[in-house]
């Protein structure tokens, strides 16, 4: 037979595809129907409620609410940065061979993790009861002047977050192979250099996912800052509802904003995780954007020959 030679010029005939009747998943249809039924019932219940949905879209972009969303965004970012920096310091202190620093770090985490953040916020706001005057030597002022709602919110949220972050960072550092420290030391690197150049970059892979989680948590926990008169979303929503009497409607408006903010940061987290996965796997899977671009390119190359003809 000259089969092999013949095959090249003639267009290859695709083999007959298997046509089998797929396994029927009746359970999926039942489950889907049940879910839809429940959603419809909930939808009916909410639409019959005494809630004025009509005003919600108007208030989403209301100036007061926008300013509240901005305050929520920046206080949560600043508090998270404070928590992250302090958390790394606490984690390193906790693992130090110096018994004083490790005990201090232990007590810090024990206290700030063990008391409600609401109480911590209120204590910072009323710190003038303990220290009526702030005297830093070069700077002296009434504590009540210094402890603004912003500062109380920042300290209350940030110092609380540091306790949680230190545990996350500690877990990350401990996840890095001991051999990495040995190799760095054998090259003559000091403890500090080893930590900064070798250990922390690798620990980030373990630290980033729970930190993203912590940040999304922080976006919502920052709503507690309303107790120290900080003008974040919930405070602003309450300000409006106290005059318009649309109480629940304003909470809906605030919740929509929280959902939007957390969604945006979930996307950011995805890209951050990819960055710190460098070197840990041979090749990274494409991002949704890269996949989209690739598909578009394929679509384009599929069409182009037709145009050329």
């Amino acid at each position: 037979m000259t089969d092999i030679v013949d095959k090249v010029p003639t267009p290859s005939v695709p083999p007959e595809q298997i046509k089998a009747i797929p396994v029927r998943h009746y359970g999926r249809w039942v489950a889907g129907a049940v879910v839809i039924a429940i959603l419809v019932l909930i939808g009916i219940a909410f639409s019959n409620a005494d809630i004025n949905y009509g005003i919600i879209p108007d208030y989403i972009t209301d100036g007061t609410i926008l300013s509240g969303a901005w305050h929520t965004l920046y206080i949560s970012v600043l508090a998270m940065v404070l928590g992250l920096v302090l958390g790394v310091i606490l984690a390193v202190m906790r693992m130090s061979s110096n018994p004083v620093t490790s005990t201090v770090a232990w007590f810090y985490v024990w206290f700030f993790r063990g008391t409600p953040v609401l109480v911590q916020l209120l204590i910072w706001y009323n710190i003038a009861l303990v220290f009526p005057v702030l005297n830093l030597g070069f700077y002296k002022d009434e504590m009540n002047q210094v402890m603004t709602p912003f500062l109380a919110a920042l300290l209350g949220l940030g110092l609380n977050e540091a306790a949680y972050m230190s545990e996350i960072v500690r877990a990350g550092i401990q996840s890095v192979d001991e051999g990495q420290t040995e190799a760095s030391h054998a090259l003559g690197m000091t403890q500090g250099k080893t930590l900064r150049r070798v250990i922390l970059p690798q620990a980030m892979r373990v630290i980033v996912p729970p930190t993203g989680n912590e940040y999304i948590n922080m976006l919502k926990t920052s709503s507690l800052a309303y107790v120290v008169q900080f003008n974040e979303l919930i405070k602003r929503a309450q300000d409006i509802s106290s005059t318009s009497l649309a109480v629940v409607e304003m909470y809906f408006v605030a919740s929509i904003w929280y959902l939007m903010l957390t969604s945006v940061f979930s996307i950011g987290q995805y890209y951050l995780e990819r960055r710190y996965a460098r070197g840990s796997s041979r090749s990274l899977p494409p991002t949704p954007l890269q996949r989209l671009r690739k598909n578009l390119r394929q679509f384009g190359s599929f069409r182009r020959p037709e145009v050329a003809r």
Partner: protein
Amino acid sequence: MSGISKDVAQPASGRPMVRAEGVHKSFGTAHILKGIDLEVNPREVFCLIGPSGSGKSTFLRCINHLEKISAGRLWVDGSLVGYRQSGDKLYELKEKEVATQRRDIGMVFQRFNLFPHMTALENVMEAPVQVKGESKAVARERAGRLLSRVGLGDRTGHYPAQLSGGQQQRVAIARALAMEPKLMLFDEPTSALDPELVGEVLDVMRSLAEDGMTMIVVTHEMGFAREVGDSLVFMDDGVVVEAGHPREVLTNPQHDRTKSFLSKVL
């Protein structure tokens, strides 16, 4: 005498590169090293063999102070490792001083321990830039040269996960050489490799020996010890059982313990 490469620092002549006197090491109640006395001369390839748990890796790790010795004295190039002696008092060195001592001692690990978040080139550049404060341009140039020397000139941009075990170990050797050490420690450098990758690593070590590098090699590669080694020590249960020229010890062992070990591995 073969030509000395630029990468191999000239050892101070006269005194031994490494001298151990009654070195003991205990981990809690486990007595690992029970009095090690030996000398390694400059430009010598010194092989340590013995069954696992005999203390040979522990001794190697004592030489660059990754482990603290419990008793005895250990000198590298004339200076005490990890301590400073003043009169008859011994002072522990500060962390920075220990780090300075380690600059001149390269170490290659069984598990490579490359930095996985850096490319091969960045791995080799890291210590000269971070420890010696060398400019990146100079470090990059030397790193490229060293990687070519170990046969990886075309792999500089690869991350460790993209390299085979033998390639990773050769990068690790280049990384250690980048600090221009006067002594190289090899801790079972081929034990974690597939058999067909062992040769490429041994070839690099052989060329390093030809260039006059002082090397202490903990190994199970008896062929390498016989061909390249200048001295060989057989350790068992924390003591040196037998020492001598590799060919003599390997072909004509005197002690029963050495005989029974060699009969199993050769």
